[in-house]
């Protein structure tokens, strides 16, 4: 491994071995006047961010079925999307938006005004198949062969941008994570965004393949894409104390506990799909998260 985690206070072998000379700051500022502070002198509490889950789903679709989904315009809030709406979208975007549509239908949110809501989305390893095709076309055709849609629809913001467009959301929209810890990163970011009580609600959409998709090789017709399921979790979150029923999602940045499992998209999706009333995880990006769908959730969130 190139980067080795190093115990605090010790010097890393090789990569990180700062010397006193190197640490002496060659800047214009006088650092002799900067007093060191230790964490004990700082506020160490940190709040728990809680939100109510007004709607949720965990959706799975076989990767082989995604092309047909692309061609079946989704109906959102009674209005079908334009047939070309998802023409250039990544397959994970299609699954994510389908999950959002499912939440709308199954949790009575069809008539909700989302115009001032926000969207945070975390697609995992987005654009692998498209990049494989792009590399092949670049080799064969040069610059001319690269689709202008590659970057806009395969960057981390693509899923959140598409959801905001589909639901006519004018609040903030951005992507979070993108890698193996993306689901945890998204929950950490979303709970903080919603905690300031300025947004009426926030969509969180998490997607990824299980197992990770291996694209077909465009140069080898015999090499077909691997069989995989595309997972999508969609959550409609609202600030606590709005009088709604529903599970409570709590997130904090401190230690979650040494006996907790790390949150993954797969585990989170299973918790939702199985209707588990209580779950708690460590967030590998730092912090913890808890899902509470019991009677006490009402009291917590009042």
């Amino acid at each position, binding site marked *: 491994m*190139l980067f*080795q985690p190093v115990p*605090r206070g010790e010097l890393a072998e090789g990569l*990180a*071995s*700062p010397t006193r000379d*190197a640490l002496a*700051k060659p800047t*214009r500022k006088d650092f002799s006047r*900067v*007093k*060191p*502070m230790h*964490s004990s002198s*700082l506020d160490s*509490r940190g709040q728990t*961010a809680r939100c109510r889950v007004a709607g949720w789903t965990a959706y799975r679709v076989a990767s082989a079925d995604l092309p047909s989904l692309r061609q079946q315009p989704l109906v959102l809030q009674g209005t079908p999307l334009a047939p070309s709406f998802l023409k250039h979208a990544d397959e994970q975007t299609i699954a994510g938006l389908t999950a959002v549509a499912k939440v709308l239908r199954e949790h009575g949110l069809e008539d909700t005004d989302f115009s001032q809501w926000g969207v945070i989305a975390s697609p995992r390893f987005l*654009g*692998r198949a498209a*990049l*494989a095709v792009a*590399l092949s076309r670049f080799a064969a055709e*040069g*610059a*001319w062969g690269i*689709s*202008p849609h*590659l*970057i*806009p629809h*395969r*960057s981390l*913001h*693509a899923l959140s941008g*598409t959801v*905001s*467009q589909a639901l*006519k959301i*004018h*609040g*903030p*929209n*951005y*992507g979070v*994570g*993108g*890698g193996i*810890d993306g689901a945890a*990163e998204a929950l950490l970011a979303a709970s*903080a965004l919603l*905690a*300031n009580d*300025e947004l009426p609600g926030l969509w969180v959409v998490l997607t990824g393949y299980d*197992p990770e*998709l*291996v694209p077909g*090789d465009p140069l080898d017709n015999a090499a077909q894409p691997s069989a995989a399921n595309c997972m999508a979790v969609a959550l409609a979150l609202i600030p606590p104390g709005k009088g709604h029923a529903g599970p409570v999602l709590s997130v904090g*940045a401190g230690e979650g506990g040494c006996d907790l499992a790390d949150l993954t998209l797969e585990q989170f999706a299973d918790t939702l799909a199985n209707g588990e009333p209580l779950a708690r995880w460590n967030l590998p*990006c*730092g912090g913890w998260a808890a899902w509470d769908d019991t009677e006490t959730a009402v009291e917590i969130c009042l």
Partner: protein
Amino acid sequence: MSARCPVWITGVGAGTPLGHTYRAIADGLLAGRSGIRAVTGFDTSQHPCRIGGQIDKVPCPPGFDEAAFAKLLRLEQLSLWCCDAALRDAGWWEHRGELRLGVVLGIGAEWLVQWEADGLAGGNGVFHPERDGQSVIRKTCEALQLSCPAVSVSAACASGNYALAQARRWLELGWVDVCLAGACDIAVSPLSLAGFGNLRALSRRNDQPELASRPFDKDRDGFVMGEGGAVFVLERAETARKRSAHAYAEVAGLGASSDAHNMVIPSPDPEPATAAMRQALADARVNPGEVDYLNAHATSTPVGDVAESRVLETVFGESLPRVPVSSTKSMTGHLLTAAAAVEALACVIAMERRALPPTINLTQPDPECALRHVPNQAEDHAVRVAVSNSFGFGGSNTCLVLKAA
């Protein structure tokens, strides 16, 4: 995004086509120097655009193994350089292990970057998910020995402002004592240069690289891609005061909205971007007439610069002729995911140097962009309130307000 306690910028780390230190970047911006030139590193002969604002070699942070550093992806190098430099600048480097130190970085397409670099070097990593490894932000945290809340965010060109907003929230929630926030992008690669070129978004002034990025100019013909990043140390004002830290600026206001119009094309309706600006000004408790400098998103595209001018007319009204506006993309190029962060740095520089960075190549201002420009040369000007607009693919509109701390 309202602040319940003032949050200050107390450290800066950056790398841009104009240099890799605060001083070099400030000197370059205020000298009106262009960082745009012919793209090197790969064959561009078939590309419609063959120019960019590249950073050639990312310096190895002090004390790190140069050979190991050289093997990293350039995006990883830049992230590490910026974070390391920011911590040292803030005076937290030696105490970073004693803090709850968060990291929020705008990183837009790291896996595409990684798979592309591997594929063009003859590898086939895109077909091998088991090789994907850790994200840039996780590697950066490990290299800097930080065990803290850390997330990557992306709203394309608006990413840096979302990173600052998220970091400020974490400080307000008491989740962290100090937070690194910013964005990095190494976007000038064969596929992205081709993709944006085929989108017809890039300038084709290939024979005059330094003149190609010309926001608000009548003869602009598209943006020029750039590379770089900027990372800031954010901390609560009370923390900074207690340790007598230098404060560059207060992160006073942030606003964000979405067009809900198109993934690529800016909305013809100025209302969503206007709302983001008004939200940021209200958050900072600043009236439009109090703004001393505005760093525009203006990328040098025919449509985008006019659209932003309409937004500024709406937000500033009668104050518009008194608000100096420039686009530093004229010198750095458009740094995409890193644009907002580097332009926040330009605002910090304007505040600290008491001088406005210019829009270079602004020889014939477009009458559709009738603003109080800072054309071609820096102007001495005290700046207590600076505003930076950043809009991005996906319909993101963001606005940052910095105040003198």
